[in-house]
Every structure is written in structure tokens, then in C-alpha cells.
């Protein structure tokens, strides 16, 4: 009896921290306060291994879904050519694109259906791509690497775009002119450093990136790195400590730079 009380007390302590972690993660991924149902499930999962396993399977299924969406469209590439395969891939992801030399955009409708007119021009290269809100990740970029005339890429609000994705964008180094990375929650400064390979970049949007601690400083560094580029989405004052704010925030920042230096 005492033992079960003791173990329950311990679980309750860990449950509080774990619930905090789970809610924090759900919040950081962009969702609003999780629903009563989600919170109830999370609470149950701290008491029962079965519920914990079910939630784990849920996450696994979701990640499998992303992997399936970003598979290589090898069959289409082999039989219809790279351009048609890339176009097909973009449309199945519910993105839209425009071929070079044409002015109309190919978009799917609200239910995800699209016409197959893009197959009539197998030699046309893609010039502008809008993949906002899609589930593209670094594996899916394999379908697009041959599009060396790509000029505009919009990745607004893509939850799976991370630093590794940015590192793979070097293949568009000769042609990419505009890149929109706003509201991609996984991007950090380490990934933005990889944009040094996009020498022709003229417009870059880095608004709404929650993992950038000093957006103003990052904007200055990016403008220095890419002289032709106009960086929007971050003001120079963002992340700057004002001299008349509390000393406490300065102390916090000092501590964070020390840990950022090295752990000795």
C-alpha cells in the first residue's frame, strides 16, 4: 500500500514534467493549445504503457505518411522524363508551379485533383514553384534536383523543411533568385549558413522563424554573406537588447553566450 502510494507519487511528479514537455512540443509545432481529448490521452499515457505505445504508433504512422509523400517518383522519371515527374510530384503534394516560357500556373483544386496537361510539354523546365504548406522534406527534393532553371521557390509554412533541406538547395545555385522560408518552424541559423551556395539569390524571406534567437543579427549576416540579396522578414532591432531594459535579460543573454561558446 505504501509502495503503491510512493510509486504513484513519483509518477505524478514525472507526469507533471512530462505533460509540460508534451504540451510544449505540441505548442512549438504550431498547434494551438491541445484539445481536452489530446490532454486526456497524454495524461493516460503517463499511467499506462498501452496508451503510451498507441501514441507512439500514431507518431510513427504520421512520420510514415511524410516518408510516403516524399518518395522518389522513379517510375515517372524513367518513363516520362524528369520535368514531368517533378511536375507530377509537386501537384501530388498540393503545390503549384509554372513552366519556363509559359505564363499560366498549374494548381490542384481544393480537393487535391489536378489536370494532366503538364504531360503535353515534357521538355519544359519548371521556373517557379509554390510549395507553401506542403509536407516536402529533404528526401522529396530528390524529385526536383534536375530543375536547373528554377527561379522562385516558396516554402512558406512547411513543417518538414529543416536545415538539411536548405543544405540540399545548393543544386539550384546557378538559377534560384527568390526563396521564401517564412514560418518554417524547424529552420535554424546552421541551415541559413548553407544558403551561401545560392549566389544568384536576390530575395529571401525569413519572417516568423521561431528558432532564430537574433533575427536582426541573422539578417545582417545574411546580407553580408549574399551581397546581391535583399533579406526581408526581420528588422534590425529584433533580438537586440535595449540599453534601458532590465539587467536580468542581459544576465540571461550573457549566460547563454557562455554556454554557446563551449562546455569545458
Amino acid at each position, binding site marked *: 500500500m505504501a509502495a503503491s502510494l510512493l510509486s504513484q507519487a513519483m509518477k505524478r511528479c514525472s507526469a507533471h514534467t512530462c505533460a509540460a514537455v508534451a504540451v510544449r512540443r505540441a505548442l512549438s509545432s504550431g498547434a494551438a493549445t491541445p484539445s481536452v481529448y489530446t490532454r486526456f490521452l497524454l495524461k493516460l499515457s503517463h499511467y499506462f504503457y498501452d496508451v503510451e505505445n498507441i501514441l507512439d504508433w500514431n507518431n510513427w504512422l504520421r512520420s510514415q505518411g511524410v516518408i510516403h509523400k516524399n518518395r522518389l517518383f522513379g517510375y515517372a522519371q524513367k518513363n516520362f522524363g524528369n520535368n514531368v515527374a517533378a511536375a507530377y510530384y509537386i501537384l501530388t503534394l498540393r503545390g503549384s508551379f509554372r513552366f519556363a516560357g509559359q505564363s499560366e500556373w498549374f494548381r490542384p483544386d481544393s480537393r487535391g485533383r489536378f489536370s494532366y496537361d503538364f504531360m503535353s510539354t515534357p521538355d519544359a523546365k519548371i521556373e517557379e514553384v509554390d510549395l507553401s504548406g506542403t509536407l516536402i522534406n529533404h*528526401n522529396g527534393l530528390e524529385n526536383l534536383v534536375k530543375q536547373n532553371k528554377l527561379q522562385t521557390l516558396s516554402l512558406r509554412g512547411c513543417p518538414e523543411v529543416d536545415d538539411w533541406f536548405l543544405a540540399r538547395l545548393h543544386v539550384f545555385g546557378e538559377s534560384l533568385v527568390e526563396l521564401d522560408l517564412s514560418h518554417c518552424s524547424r529552420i535554424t541559423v546552421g541551415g541559413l549558413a*548553407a544558403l551561401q551556395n545560392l549566389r544568384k539569390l536576390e530575395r529571401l524571406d525569413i519572417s516568423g522563424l521561431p528558432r532564430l534567437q537574433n533575427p536582426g543579427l541573422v539578417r545582417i549576416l545574411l546580407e553580408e554573406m549574399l551581397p546581391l540579396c535583399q533579406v526581408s522578414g526581420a528588422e534590425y532591432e529584433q533580438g537586440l537588447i535595449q540599453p534601458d531594459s532590465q539587467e536580468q535579460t542581459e544576465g540571461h543573454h550573457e549566460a547563454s553566450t557562455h554556454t554557446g561558446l563551449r562546455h569545458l
Partner: protein
Amino acid sequence: MWRKLFTSVPAFRALKAPCRSFKSSSRGAEKDFFKDLDAQLRAFRDKAAAAMPGSDWSPIELTPGLPPERADVVIVGGGVVGWSIAYWLKMKARVRDGLRVLVVEKDPTYSQASTVLSCGGIRQQFSLKENIMLSLFSAHFMKNINNHLCVVNEDPVDLQFNHSGYLFLASEKSAHIMEENYRTQRCFYYLIIKHVFDFIGRYVGAKVALLSPSQLKERFPWMNTEGVALASLGLENEGWFDPWSLLNALRRKAVSMGVYQCFGEVTGFKCAANLAETTDGEVLNVQRIKYVNVRMPNSLEYQPVECAVVVNAAGANSGKIASMLGIGLGPKESVSGVPLPVEPRKRFVYVVHCPDGPGLDTPFLIDYSGVYCRREGLGGNYITGMSPEETEEPDISNLDVDHEFFQEKVWHRLAHRIPAFEQLKVSNAWAGFYDYNTFDQNGIIGLHPLVPNMYFATGFSGHGLQQSPAVGLAVAELILDGGYKTIDLSALDLKRILLQEPILESNIV
């Protein structure tokens, strides 16, 4: 303990006697009794709860932190290579508790471990195809690290990976080596096998670009390209990350899968010896390890752990572990006279601050003179260092930093390459050990003929961190499947030491 419950009350009262003030004794005794009654009842309740089944009290006083008496695999060394092997062993043995793995680490604070003192870089620009494969696999592992190493209800893993790439500069005489390496890297494709939960079969090559001095100057205007004939820049899968995060992620996941962790030092082995005769008629003493003696920290107490397989992933101390088994202590011409050629070599890392230094596009620059430099954070700090000459190796008895080395050897070469570094300030420095393979500076993986159940995974000479996930999988495959399945590392086998056939890597730092 039961006796203590009932004798505690009079003992307490007896202690109170000397410090009592001038009061009538009987009334004072009663007051103390009621004041103490609450505390006494609480103590009684705690002791009763501890005595009930389900608490962790036991009448036999055990030393905390002892390893289990029996384990299937004992991994000596709790660095990133050791934990990677533990993780992959558990990953391959799918059944929980199917394989009992114990990781023994000498230092719980990791104060001298090479893993955490490393600069954390990862690159694919090697000349040996096995090294390229190992780094490429590790990069892919880190790409999907949350699929591999996430634990339910814990924070996702954040390696703080900076994708700036490595930039190797070559002078006239070494430019042709760089071109050879470039061809090896581009032409080599590596197939990643489909894993049950994680990755899909793909063909990938290592993405590297060759730059001429003029292209280099245009790309990195802060660099002085004098003396540079050719440069190679890694475009993808190269950069640097936080080694402590990787170590902790591997450790957390391995412990969640049931790996035992013990902080203690391996002081000896108990082996069963057999005699074997070689084709030359030489009689060898083949030892099979039966027990590993693990000594507790700050104590003489040790626990002999009965085991089937031992893995030597002790890094800079691997030579010491090998000599405990008599490897290298035999007559000079025989197999047992060849020691494990891994010894600790001290390397210095200096943190410098330069306000006008290169910006966000600074890659991990490696000059042909041996000096290297990379950006650290966004505040104008850089990490730099250099490998000393063979004849001027620093003393390895401690990890003290030699600042004269920076002033005399490193600074002028650094300032020559990056003129802005003529004005800088050294804000910090530390030293760490390489597990240096004095034979050919490449990793040693495999079995020793004289000890049929000790696997070696050491001697990476500064590349252990970037190759650790792949090496872990390779050793797990050796142990559980008997051979390599994913990456073929037969070229890095230990027998090349005994046959005196070095495989040399020309692109080491």
C-alpha cells in the same frame, strides 16, 4: 533496524541531558517528550514505509552503482563510439532483454573524454572509400536522428548542426592529391539499406565542388589566396555539430532500450587460455575473456562481470586495455609482440574573438599548412588549432594548454590565410586527446587473433565522432551477424597491423 526503532527514544533523551537548562528535571523531560513525539512518530512512519514490500531498503548493504554480475556484451568506454555500438546492438536485437549490454565508463564527468572535447566537424572529403562511406552514413543518420533516437515523452534531439561545409586548400604540390580524392568522392555511390522503421534505399554521392583561386577569391573575399592552387568545398552533409548532444541522445535512447551503464574502471580481465599452433610451428597463447574486472570509482572494490564478448572502445586508453591482455607484451617477432598502435595524442583548440572576421559563410577551413579554423556562434568567435609536427608532440600526462604554441605556430599561419585575424584575442582554450593510430591513422575495427572475443573499435585519430554511428552499426553487425552487412570495413580490420600493411589516408588533419 527494528531494534533501532525502539531504542531511538531513550537514546534521544539521553543526548538531550547535557544541554538542558536549569529547570526541574521531570517537567522538562515531559515537555521534550511531547515536542519530540511528532518527530519520533514521523521517523517511525518513514521506517515502517521503508520496511514494507516495494521499497528499496534491503538488509544487505550493497555498493551503489555496481555493474551486473553477468552481461552478454561489455563495452569498455562510454564515449560516442561505445554508446553508438550499444545503441545498434540493442536496435538489431529486437527483443527487449534479448541481449544484455553493459557500457563501462571511467569518468562520469567526461572531463577528459575525447568526444566532448572535439570540435565536432563532419566531412566526406577523404581519400579512402571506407572513410567516405562511414561519414556519409553518419550524416544520413544525423539527418533522420529523431527517427532513430527519439524517446517517448522526451524532447526531440537537437544537434545544432551548422551546414557550412569544409574547405580544403591545396598548394601546388598537393593539388594533384586533391583532384584524385575529388574523383573518388564523386564517382562513389553508396546504397543505404532499407531499415524496418527508418530509411529508404537511395543512391547518393558525396557533393564536393572544386574551386580555382579566382573562384575562391570571389566566393570568400576575406581570404588571402596566395599559395593556393586548388580548393575543395563540401556542399552537402558537411559541417559541424554539438558532440555532447549526440552522445546524450545515443545514451538516452540506449538506456531506454535497456542498456546498463556503469561508472567504473576496467582494471583487468580473467581469461581462459588455450594453446594454438600456427602454420610456422609457433605456439600461441590464445586467451578467451571470461570476466571483466570493473573497479568502482575511489574505491578498491571491484566486480568481476562475466561476459561473452568485450568491445574495446576506450579511445585514447585502448592501448592500455589491450596491454592488460598481453597484446604487445610477448617476444618481439611473434604475433603477441605487436602492440595495439593506439596512443593518446594531445591536441589544442583555441577560441579566438575577432570582431572583423569572416561572417556566416565561414566554412571549416583547413589550410595546407595544417592550421584549421571554423566559426563558433554568431558573435565573431572562431575555433582554431593545428596538428603539431610528429617530432613536437606535446606531453600527454595532463590536459594543460600550451599558449606558446598558438603564438608561435598557429597565429601567423592563420593571419596569412585570413588577414582579418591579424587582430584577434584568444578568449579560451582547451586540450583533448586523439586516439591516435600510430600505424596509419585510420580506425581499427575487428578481432585480434589472440583474443577471440574482444572486438576493437578504436584508433580513429580524430575522426571517431564523425564516424561513430556507422562504426557502431558495423561492430554490431560483426558481433550479431558475424560479418559486415551495411558497410564493408574489411580494409580497416586489425589484421593489417599484424601483417604490416598500412592503408594510408592522405587527407587527414
